[in-house]
């Protein structure tokens, strides 16, 4: 169990660093949403289902959707 948690933590950090460095903004937003989703799984591991639900619905779904709308309506890649 603890190895799964470590794997997920490393994956989250990797996604976060990648989403900062990627030039393609849509890919960066999707990676950010994925990292939120993994964090919500980690909250379940820490026995905090309430926080996990908030993180999954707001962090992974709504925030990502709002960012994607904004990226679609502005520039798709960073210069």
């Amino acid at each position, binding site marked *: 169990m603890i190895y799964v948690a470590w794997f997920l933590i490393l994956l989250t950090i990797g996604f976060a660093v990648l989403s900062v460095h990627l030039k393609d903004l849509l890919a960066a937003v999707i990676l950010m949403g994925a990292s939120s989703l993994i964090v919500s799984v980690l909250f379940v591991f820490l026995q905090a*289902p309430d926080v996990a639900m*908030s993180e999954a*619905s707001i962090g992974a779904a*709504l925030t990502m959707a*709002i960012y994607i*709308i904004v990226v679609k309506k*502005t520039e798709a890649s960073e210069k």
Partner: protein
Amino acid sequence: MTRSIVYSVFLALIVAVVLVFLVAFPFGQNKMGVGQYYLDNTVKQTGAENVVTAITLEYRGFDTLGEVTVLFAAATGVSLLLYLTDEEKKRRRNPRVQPNFVVRVGSRIIFPFVVLFGLYIIVHGHLTPGGGFQGGAIIASGVLMLYLANPDMHVSRNNLLITEGLAGLTYVLLGTAGLFTAGRSFLANFLPLGTPGLVLSAGILLPLYIAVGVKVGSEFSGIIDDLFSQAGETGGEA
């Protein structure tokens, strides 16, 4: 060159601080007695099975009012930047791409179930994990799905604003009502606690969380509506 030196110094500082805290405080161990107090007394004092809900609405109800206010300020800020009147929205939304039939009809069939699930989460906030914030966000994501699947989808922004305001007013009025009861304090739990484990229990926690859920749902829907109705480079669709 100087930038990379500054970066490395900050990185070293962050790593050092994290290591110090990891060594000084064992992760996940209870350092304070207050957590055990809540676990021991919540069901007796508030009648709520979900301790987290009891803390956010009963013991720290005033903080939740502040949290709701912050969200209200954020939604108002988005409206301030992106608000359009209803006629202007209809004129501006001019989709070039129509989603296919299955997506449009399927989203309309799924939407009631999403709303039902959100309501379930809100109403059972004091019994199971979840509550007003989570349920409201789920309802708003249902609205988001409708917006994605139907380019001519349109919710009246004024109705959303009125719903949001009434829900916020309900929270404040329920809190104020506590001032005139035996508790004599803001957000005192003046309704009967009932049997823990039933839906109609835990006094004012249920109406409070319904108010929070409606408020969060309409606020997020409003933000989504504002964003979608602003025509950008791609026309009206996103």
